[in-house]
């Protein structure tokens, strides 16, 4: 690399990891209500920063996506991802209760974020945000008519954008037949396909990619999956895809836990979708299924902002899942309290449960989680399992 220091990327990425893990553990421990409370501030400050890149950002590769704060540079559009997830969750919960003017207001602010990213220009990120937004809305129970209208409008906008932006158009042409212009427009895709193809069934082995040696563009970020594919082969790639599906299932299934508040479930779904869809777009670019675009592979690609933003999203997911799992417990506690109040004689509950129930008068997931942890520590598994599904 031309950066002089052979450990340049290592140090930069380590910094990102340390920061990111700090953010992750913080997010895991702070109740989601905190994020919902501060959502407007978070959302609008990210929006402001994204807009700011248009004016004070640094242009790199034809797009101004970075803001430089002294020695570090941040990419605000990365933080649009968690901001949008929280914002949309809040929006979807309130949607049925809102009147038309309020709905419009919410819709416009949400779409403003996507628009700001789009004019950066960062088409791929805009597409990612739109797709996640749409899927969250879909899972959040918005009427199909509205969803289909949005889908149509979005597609029309994307087509218009691609066909009017010159570099998007030429990219699209190169995409349709990359080998015809292997040295010019199709270069990136050709190099990527060569890397993937070189992998074969089993790959060349960890660290043994040849293509990453200055043939592949951005082998450390936008085309890192090509390196992965070359080094680990089809077997490794299929394992990766299976892992993505597993991740999707493990995050998305909590949507069905209807006992939990909707916004929490939607945050879990949105965070999962954000990470999985971003991965899918990255892989699709690498294998030439969609036109080349700069989309890093979350948690794999180099990039501090992306790493911190992704770990923030992951932290939201973990926190949301914890709160979803705590919901039945809370419900049970409520019911137990009601039973106590009506003094109906029933079979006594497990004794360990009483202090938990008594201690939580209102919905307080963080407390519930804390109590649950304490209870688990006290009575090994058995009781917990019984308590989770009270008869």
């Amino acid at each position, binding site marked *: 690399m031309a950066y002089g220091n052979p450990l340049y990327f290592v140090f930069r990425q380590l910094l990102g990891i340390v920061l990111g893990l700090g953010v992750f553990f913080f997010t895991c421990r702070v109740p989601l209500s905190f994020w919902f409370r501060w959502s407007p501030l978070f959302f609008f400050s990210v929006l402001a920063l994204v807009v700011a890149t248009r004016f004070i950002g640094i242009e790199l590769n034809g797009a101004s996506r970075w803001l430089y704060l002294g020695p570090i540079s941040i990419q605000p559009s990365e933080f649009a991802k968690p901001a949008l997830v929280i914002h949309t969750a809040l929006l979807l919960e309130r949607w049925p209760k809102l009147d038309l003017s309020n709905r419009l207001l919410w819709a416009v602010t949400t779409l403003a974020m996507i628009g700001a990213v789009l004019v950066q220009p960062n088409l791929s990120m805009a597409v990612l945000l739109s797709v996640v937004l749409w899927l969250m809305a*879909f899972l959040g129970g918005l009427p199909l008519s509205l969803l289909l209208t949005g889908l149509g409008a979005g597609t029309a906008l994307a087509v218009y954008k691609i066909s009017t932006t010159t570099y998007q158009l030429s990219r699209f042409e190169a995409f349709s037949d990359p080998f015809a212009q292997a040295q010019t427009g199709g270069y990136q895709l050709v190099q990527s396909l060569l890397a*993937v*193809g*070189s992998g074969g069934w089993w790959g060349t082995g960890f660290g043994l990619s040849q293509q990453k040696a*200055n043939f592949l563009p951005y082998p450390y970020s936008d085309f890192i999956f090509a390196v992965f594919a070359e080094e680990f082969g089809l077997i490794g790639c299929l394992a990766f895809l299976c892992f993505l599906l597993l991740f999707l299932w493990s995050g*998305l299934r909590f949507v069905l836990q209807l006992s939990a508040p909707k916004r929490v479930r939607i945050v879990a779904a949105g965070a999962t979708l954000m990470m999985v869809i971003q991965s899918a777009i990255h892989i699709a670019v690498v294998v030439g299924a969609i036109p080349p675009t700069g989309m890093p592979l979350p948690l794999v690609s180099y990039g501090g902002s992306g790493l911190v933003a992704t770990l923030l999203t992951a932290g939201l997911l973990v926190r949301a899942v914890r709160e979803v799992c705590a919901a039945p417990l809370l419900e049970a506690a409520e019911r137990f309290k009601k039973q106590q109040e009506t003094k109906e004689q029933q079979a006594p509950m497990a004794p360990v449960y009483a202090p938990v129930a008594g201690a939580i008068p209102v919905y307080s997931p963080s407390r519930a989680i804390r109590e649950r942890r304490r209870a688990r520590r006290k009575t090994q598994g058995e009781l917990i399992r019984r308590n989770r599904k009270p008869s």
Partner: protein
Amino acid sequence: MTQLRTNRERANEFQLRRLEKMSLRHSRQTKQRYSFVGVLFLLLMGYLGWTLFQLQVLKAPDLRARALQQQTKRVRSYLPRLPLADRKGVALANDEPIYALYAHPYILQKEAEIQFRQNLKKKKTTLDQQSSAFPNYVKRAAEELAPILKTSQKKLVTQLGDTSKTTISLTRDLGQGEMEQVEALKLAGLEKEMRRRRVYPTGEESANLVGFIDYNGVGQSGIEQFYNRALAGIDDKNRKLYFNGFGQILASQTPENYFQTDDRNMVLSLDMRLQRAAHLAVQQGVQEYKAKRGAAIILDPRNGEILALASSPAFDNNALGKYGPKVFKNWTVTELYEPGSTFKPLNIAMGLDSGRIRANDVVYDGGSLTLSRRTIRNASGHGNGAISVTEVLKRSSNIGMVRLMQKLDRGDYYDRLRALGIGRKSGIDLPGEAAGIFKSKGQFVRYPIESATTAFGQGVSMTPLQLVRFHSALANGGYLVQPHLATKIMNSQGEAIWNPELTPPKRIFSEKSARTVRQMMVQIVESGTGKAAKIPGYEIAGKTGTAQKVNPNGRGYLQGKKITSFIAHFPADKPRYVVLVVMDEPGVPGAFGSTTAAPVVRKILEEIISADRILPKGPIPLPGRLEDDNKEAAKGGAPRD
């Protein structure tokens, strides 16, 4: 009251049921949508997996081939060729970098434009001078380049200014110093390409042994050809190497030791002092005796190392253009000749070994002898009467030799000749060695004339070098050694990392017969045909030879054409040098081995004495006596062989 309560309860129940219904619907919808999203992603991942399968399995061979095509290049060795040195470290061949210089006029033009624009900014120039910016730039570049490249400025201006061409070759051989000068000019649009040039410091004096390389760095003659692979440094010159996208070689994929920079060199057994002496002596001899060509070989009989091998005509391997391809062959190795009388001592040794000839035998030399309707004569034309074996050699009597060798069983004689290695290669590490020609055993046994001619060295052919090899068996007490030039490849620590594989010495004569023959040969130099090689105070064993030249285009011999030679073992009691001088077709009248080759050998021996500081064996006679001796040798009844 009850009714009211009941009503409120009813209302509550209704409300509850509605809520339950709603939540049920909500639950069903969520489940449906969840499943829909799940299926969507299953399809998406399936599609990506299928695309990956297509790329990594179905299209993989094609893609991998394309990838390899851009990642690998066949590369000629970057290593400099191993230098060559003689046994004392005198450099015989070295590698030095040399550059080809190219110019790209288009880039020059761009640079001129950039400079113009910068000057315009600094207000050093005006816009109307734009058209002259490039010509001016070219002119300046040509001004600076011309003295370094040693070409005319005008030519450079037209070359550099021709933007219709993308690349122009300015020069192909620019030395390191000149290249540095060019680089110091910091001109745009120039490109250098490094090659390596082989430089031979000793040039003509050793060119026939060292050889040379062609433009592609492949050895085409001499040691350079024979050891081409070893000198090139690696076995496989055209290796496949991995490169990165910048065209840099990837170290992890490059074979170990590929860029070994250890200062290895190949050491030859050659002694440049003797080689130079031999070279000069041969050149002078050829000139003096008007010979077509000549050669001198000095071999260490103890181990077969070639100390010198000079031949004429010589060529300069630093400037090959002047010579025709014929000169590049080392004829002492590639061409056969009939050795003539120099072969006689070997015959005597074989006879002594067989027991049929004794050192004190006496034979009758009548001057001529007719066998199989062919008459053999002495070179002198007259007979010598009853003479001893020593006298036979001293006077180089053909008839005497025939008579002696007739005592041997012809089959036995043939076997002994074969055991000597006649008709086989000597194994010298020079390219294109010829194997000697020798008759079949059946023919040799059936016709007495065959063994008779072989007795005085005709009808049997070998290369001069092979003859020296046979003689070194006499010199070292009976062992046949393998002549060779390369002795080792040395690393920078002086350790030998390669040694030639030599066949172990094979005994072919008994020690006693070898010694006896050597003593006889001493007499040849002392008082026989070899007097011209005599150096007072030193004991030299020698033998002259004047052979008829075989007609290369058919049977028989060339009329009036001779090859004269002289072979010497020195010092005679324990020889460390076997010296052979051969003169092909000497043009002066009365040319014999004694008159043309022996003086050359003498010159070489004198150089050996002074180089090795060999002390005389006995008292050196006074100079006056020496002159007498030489005079006697010069006219002395025309010593013939």
